[in-house]
């Protein structure tokens, strides 16, 4: 069955009246959870963003646009632009590492496939902070890598690796790589081998087959993986602090600082809403690209 056909089938199933009760039962708890745990806080920060900052935390019930006005300070654009840059580099690197890895995993015999997939998620079993601290141990000037290199006489002065933008990127790629590999794996694994054979039979070179057949078909996985890496990278504030030495701040740090240091809830809310808006734009782009792909290749 073609992809489009499969989708139509699912739609037809979903809209039959007999499944309405089933839908309520299955979707209900999830939607209720979202309404309470996502909807309510979201409404709260939208409300906060239009109120006056209380001197000692909290908000004063006087409507104002002051918090939104603060966005005019160019410093915030620099921080947002810097965050987008770092998150983009991390996403591209994760894709470059994750795509071949997912391809290899998908080609493994069933038994080894499971082992490889478990290995991919294994880091999640240990604490995120501990794993980040491990990078400090590895990268610092008196750390493992510098010591080994110095011991071999390859360097005289330590390479200043920690507390740089590069260290932040390394940390983000390391932490979020599994979120890239898993959706890529699932889209690659689903590929019908017959499609590749057909492309070959019709005379396409391996490169052309990849570019015209395989890449478009795995695009949903690429998009999903990229979003899964980009979104949390953009909002991360722990990695810039630990591996960046606090010398470079990302938008996540900015939001956190407004709430916990500046006691400025309205402006913190404004910044949080900006991040959410950015995410919505990205998801919209993803949805559009996917729809186009379906239209072209369905």
């Amino acid at each position, binding site marked *: 069955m073609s992809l489009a056909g499969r989708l139509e089938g699912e739609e037809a199933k979903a809209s039959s009246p007999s499944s309405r009760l089933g839908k309520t039962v299955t979707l209900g708890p999830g939607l209720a959870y979202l309404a309470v745990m996502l909807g309510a806080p979201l409404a709260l920060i939208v409300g906060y963003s239009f109120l006056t900052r209380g001197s000692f935390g909290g908000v004063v019930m006087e409507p104002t646009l002051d918090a939104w006005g603060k966005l005019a300070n160019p410093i915030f654009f620099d921080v947002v632009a810097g965050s987008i840059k770092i998150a983009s580099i991390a996403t591209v690197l994760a894709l470059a590492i994750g795509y071949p890895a997912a391809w290899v995993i998908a080609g493994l015999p069933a038994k080894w496939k499971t082992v490889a997939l478990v290995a991919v998620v294994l880091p999640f079993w240990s604490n995120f902070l501990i794993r980040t601290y491990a990078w400090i141990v590895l990268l610092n000037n008196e750390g493992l890598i510098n010591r080994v290199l110095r011991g071999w006489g390859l360097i005289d002065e330590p390479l200043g690796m920690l507390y740089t933008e590069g260290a932040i990127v390394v940390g983000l790629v390391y932490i979020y790589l599994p979120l890239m590999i898993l959706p890529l794996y699932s889209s690659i694994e689903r590929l019908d081998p017959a499609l590749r054979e057909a492309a070959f039979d019709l005379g396409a070179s391996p490169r052309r087959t990849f570019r015209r057949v395989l890449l478009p078909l795995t695009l949903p996985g690429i998009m999903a993986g990229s979003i899964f890496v980009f979104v949390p990278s953009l909002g991360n504030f722990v990695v810039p602090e630990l591996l960046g030495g606090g*010398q470079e701040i990302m938008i996540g740090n900015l939001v956190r600082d407004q709430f916990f240091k500046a006691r400025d809830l309205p402006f913190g809310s404004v910044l949080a809403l900006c991040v959410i808006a950015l995410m919505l734009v990205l998801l919209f782009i993803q949805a559009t690209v996917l729809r186009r792909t379906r239209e072209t290749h369905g």
Partner: protein
Amino acid sequence: MRRASGLVACLGLLVAACGGGDAVEQNPVDEQSIVISNWEGYMPEDLPDTFAAATGFDATVSFHATNEEIVGKLVAAGGEGFDVAFVSGQFAQALNEQGLLAEIDPDKVPNLKNLYPEATELGYDPGNTFSVPYAWGTTGLCYRSDLLSEAPDSWMDLLRPSDEAAGKVTMLATERWLMLPAQKALGFSVNTTDEGEMTQVKDLLIEAKQNLLAYDDTTFYSKLVSGEAVLVEAWDGWCNYGILEDPNIKYVIPSEGTDLWVDTMVILGSSANKDAAHAFLNYVLDEDNHAWVVENILYKVPNQAAMDKVDPSLAETFPNLGMTPAEVLGGEALLDLGEAQPMYTDIATEVAAGG
């Protein structure tokens, strides 16, 4: 004169109206129990148990990571849910201005007599009317004497380090202490609210980033021990954790002067357990209990009786513990910034994002 006294009377009324501490109905003394919020590890773990055994009051402890966190909680809930909180002096001052704190009744805290006389006249709360000091200290430079050819004696040694220290210095990132080296190096008050002065502070801090290894509030002493850093801005108690591992590590207060920070205990006005809360303050101020802080956290306490109890050899290993109250009070007490707080935050953001 009469007009002035009228004003004072008005203010008095206002305070009475805002304070409202005594209006809270108190639980019967034999049913009182308290909830305390403190930094983790800042008092003995078994203190609630020994306190209960000694006084009969139950105590529950919760933790906060920063002043801002607990102040945020207390302001949001009007102080509900807590009876006693540990906060730094300038935050106690802010809470009191919000009318959230109870007046300390000295009759219920007889151990106040243990405090140094100097500790009852601190800038944020002269007379200890709404707070009781728990620990105090200074901020200075902590350095590796074996890796620096000259001992530092100026904040400029941190901000414009020599070649041998360049790239091997760290600074504190928490706002007030982020500003402090530049404020003192430029001859300003640590409580300045002058925009022109703060612009100079900002420029100097951005310049200093070129030679900075990292901003670090929590692990700077281990960076000294490993040799990754040779000179760091440090709270004196934390420098001791470095000295503990490497006696080449030294602490110095730069010639331009420094701050005086005080961590305090306060009782919330909304507490219905004020007898138990006062009993807790009194229990902490007991010389044996308070000496624990010195012996285990290596912080100075403003408690003369407790300091006298501590083994004098400790002050030889950790010279900051031997500082007299007069020396500690040479520092400028940190005060709440009030309306200027957002300016400090904006400057901290610009420093972090700049350079």
